[in-house]
């Protein structure tokens, strides 16, 4: 596996006159292998955009090492910039120019032949509106212009910051198909998002960030498996027996959560549960492993699961995994 993007121990603290210091990245690590579609997942304000801006030389990190396509950045950024296409944060364009003008100016500035402009406009589905001023575009159309600008130079690595922002469901699906076909052609894609379904559907691997730190990384299934904590739902024929069953399982070394009409037993094989209960004369009526999805893993890892009756504030993630 060759890594096209490596980040080690990256830290960044914003200093602003009015609000003082704000640590956005606190020793963040990330690795993206060549040829994969990598998801970069985290709640709002967790540091995704900051990471991408730092990587692309827009802001100066306070510490850490970064490599893009094998070259250290920001030192050698100018050499690899031509092979990396990127958009950071819903990108904005000069509102009075058309998409075609905007892209052809970028193409000129980057020594890309102008014929490429028509190709990328076609690719993102803007061919028929390309001559209109960007001011008249919807958010989703601007997002498409941005993706088109990132594709202009046929990059080896495509970095997209929340590309699904502002797209309608049809647009999201088209974007997903576009990314799949780009990946099939051998392009590495790094995709940041706070929308989990997106990542789970198209990414090979994922890095989850919370409060400026990596909290999980790896192939999507592995992350799911590692954090699924395989609980099993247990129902008995007689609900009155539930307390006895819980006591028996706990005594035998299981981790049990009692609920009004069933038990949740963590990380145990169903066979062990049936046997243990049968030994005490308790008979199981339902035994169901609970499947997890990335969403619950994400909510668990970043501590942003909703709590009834509370409005979570943007920065209220929890620190997971001994970092506190």
């Amino acid at each position, binding site marked *: 596996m060759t890594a096209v993007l490596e980040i080690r121990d990256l830290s960044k603290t914003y200093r602003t006159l009015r609000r003082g210091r704000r640590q956005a990245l606190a020793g963040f690590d990330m690795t993206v292998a060549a040829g994969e579609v990598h998801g970069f997942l985290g709640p709002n304000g967790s540091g995704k955009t900051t990471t991408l801006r730092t990587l692309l030389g827009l802001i100066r990190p306070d510490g850490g090492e970064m490599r893009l396509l094998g070259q250290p950045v920001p030192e050698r950024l100018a050499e690899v910039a031509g092979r990396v296409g990127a958009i950071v944060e819903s990108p904005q364009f*000069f509102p009075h120019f058309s998409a075609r003008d905007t892209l052809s100016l970028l193409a000129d500035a980057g020594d890309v032949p102008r014929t490429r402009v028509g190709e990328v406009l076609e690719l993102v589905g803007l061919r028929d509106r390309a001559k209109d001023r960007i001011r008249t575009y919807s958010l989703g159309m601007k997002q498409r212009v941005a993706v088109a600008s990132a594709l202009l130079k046929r990059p080896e690595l495509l970095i997209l910051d929340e590309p699904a922002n502002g797209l309608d469901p049809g647009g999201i699906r088209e974007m997903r198909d576009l990314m799949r076909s780009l990946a099939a052609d051998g392009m590495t894609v790094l995709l940041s998002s706070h929308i989990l379904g997106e990542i789970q559907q198209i990414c090979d691997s994922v890095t989850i960030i919370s409060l400026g730190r990596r909290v999980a990384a790896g192939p999507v299934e592995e992350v799911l498996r590692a954090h699924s904590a395989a609980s099993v739902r247990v129902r008995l024929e007689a609900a009155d027996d539930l307390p006895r069953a819980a006591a028996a399982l706990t005594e035998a070394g299981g981790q049990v959560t009692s609920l009004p009409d069933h038990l949740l037993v963590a990380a145990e094989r169903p066979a062990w549960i049936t046997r243990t209960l049968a030994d005490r004369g308790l008979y199981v009526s339902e035994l169901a492993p609970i499947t997890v999805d990335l969403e619950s893993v994400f909510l668990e890892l970043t501590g942003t699961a909703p709590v009834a009756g509370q409005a979570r504030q943007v920065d209220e993630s929890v620190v997971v995994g001994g970092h506190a």
Partner: protein
Amino acid sequence: MSLYLAELRRLGKRRLTRFVLVLLILGLGAIVVAMTASSQKSGPAAKAKAEVAAEADYQEQMGYHRQFVARCEAAKEAGTSQQQGMPTDCAEITPPQREWFSVEHYLPFELDFRELFPIFIAVFAGILALAAYLVAASFVGAEWSSGGMTNLLLWRPKRLTVLLTKLGAVLTGVLATGLLLGALWTVAFWLIGRYDGTLGGMTPGVWRSFALDGARGLGLVLAVTTVGFGLASLGRHTAMALGAAVAVGVISEAGLRIATSVIGVPFPGRWILSSYALAWFNKKWTLIDVQSCAFDPVNGCVPKEFTITWQHSAIVFAAGTALVLLATLWTMRRRDVA
């Protein structure tokens, strides 16, 4: 090179650039038209007409004079000279002199190309500088505030190269516009001099002096362009440059003028930017402190003078421009683009 050409293209495509260019051409055109309309060649016919007008005025004034003398005599006879404020000796009233009504005063305005064109070079430079300041500030300011700069830096992650290329493009645009419109401006005034005025005394030396005036004017315009560009980039917004221009106007031209006169600093004009602009175009600008007295054995008390030369102006303008440019480049290198 490709970036430079792309930036030139971007400059030309901007609405503000085109709008200001049209306004500039209309404004300069209006001045030319006004000069053509008001300037008239002083041929024999015009001279004869002026002669007649001068004579008529003289005769009219003589008429008033005779009436006044008659009233004076009447008052003297009635012995009421004192009450009417009349002199006792009516011969004391001086009659108007014929030479007071010289023909020149009655000739229509005639543009003397050699005499007046230097002033119009300064006018041209002033108007062009205003337009260039606006265009340059908005060229980079709008790019910052619209996020275009971020996009460009993603393409070309060399910040200083990008910014200096942009500046180069806008300076090229201003210089080309200045040379082209300046040539047209010169031709227009030469034509007014030729057909509606006078071209007397145009030697190669005069032309060379015009060329030097023009070069100084363009130099100032380019400096102003750079400052507008730099301030807008420093503030990352066009409004920053416009605000700074207003602030300098208010502080330097009004605030300092008042403050220095209150605390009584000699030669307050020394602290005012426009004195340096005047010196730049006139080669020197002399400030006079009318309240002071430098004793001179021949003339007695003469007011002290302070002369600003165009070299002083060059130093002031170059230092100011360099300061803004350095600050701009330094922040471009150091500050986060977020």
